[in-house]
């Protein structure tokens, strides 16, 4: 996969399969520390220690339709290829946290990619899950929690065209704001 955003989508799919009803995606870009940190936490069924130990092995999966699971080993390999690391923590009945660290400036680090498209796929494709997105670039923060939106809609589907537009624009504006460079005003002494 060519984008970190596609890996995030893939890992979040595991949360959905694990029966989570709340999933949080956190992205921390700290340019001072040269760090890009991704965390995906869910309250799904979790895994026991034995499964957890094997989960980064490409030949382990809890799925039954096909025997080989590749999502987690893929993401781990991508991080390790650029001086990053990968960690996964899980407890049966409580949920799973996946954390991935990249060196932000590493030449081989794949781009974050279209994170809006990833998040909207998850939000709109699984409306019964409570989705939370938190992203910061240095001191700028963007938080998107779908709960107030769903309450305001009171049962109206998220795929109602005007609603879709509202959600997409809100999210895209939030992301754009993170990457805006502060405008510098040049003061003239004249």
């Amino acid at each position, binding site marked *: *996969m060519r984008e970190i955003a*596609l890996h995030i*989508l*893939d890992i979040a*799919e595991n949360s*959905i*399969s694990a029966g989570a009803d709340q999933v949080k995606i956190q992205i921390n870009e700290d340019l001072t520390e040269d760090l890009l940190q991704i965390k995906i936490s869910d309250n799904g069924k979790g895994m026991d220690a034995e499964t957890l130990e094997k989960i980064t092995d490409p030949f382990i999966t809890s*799925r039954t*339709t*096909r025997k080989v*699971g*590749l*999502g987690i080993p*893929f993401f781990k390999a991508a991080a390790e290829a650029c001086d990053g690391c990968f960690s996964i923590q899980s407890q049966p009945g409580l949920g799973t946290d996946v954390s991935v660290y990249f060196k932000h400036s590493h030449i081989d680090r794949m781009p974050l990619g*279209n994170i809006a*498209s*990833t998040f*909207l*796929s*998850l939000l*709109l*494709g*699984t409306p019964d899950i409570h989705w939370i997105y938190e992203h910061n670039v240095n001191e700028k*923060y*963007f*938080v*998107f929690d779908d709960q*107030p*939106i769903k309450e*305001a*809609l*009171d049962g*109206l*589907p998220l*795929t*109602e*065209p*005007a*609603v*879709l*537009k*509202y959600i*997409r*624009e*809100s999210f895209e*504006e*939030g992301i754009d*704001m993170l990457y805006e460079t502060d405008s510098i005003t040049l003061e003239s002494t004249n």
Partner: protein
Amino acid sequence: MPTLKSLEDLKQIREEALKKQQLRENSGKKEVIVGMGTVGIAAGARETLKAILDMIERENLKDIIVRQTGNIGLDSFEPIVQVVLPNEEKVTYGNVKPDMARRILEEHVVGGEIVQEYQIEK
């Protein structure tokens, strides 16, 4: 910290949508399902789903529910799109690229005609 667009805007959108909904006959929801397992994602399922959402927004297509599903065991046909119309059997399409998704939406979901050339043999 920035806030979202106002929730009041959203409530207004809701009121308007409900008014229009009452005017439309209750034809039932049409469902579009996109496979989003690892293989589907790697094959471009996110772009296929995005094309569907963009078209719903742009063409103002009503009463369509979009869902996603995990791997359904048809890897070589990913990205997979399934369409379920009220009182009809589920139709499965394979290797669906964004332009194909738009055609499926237009001809099948809106028009009611199955796009047979994209359909996977059962």
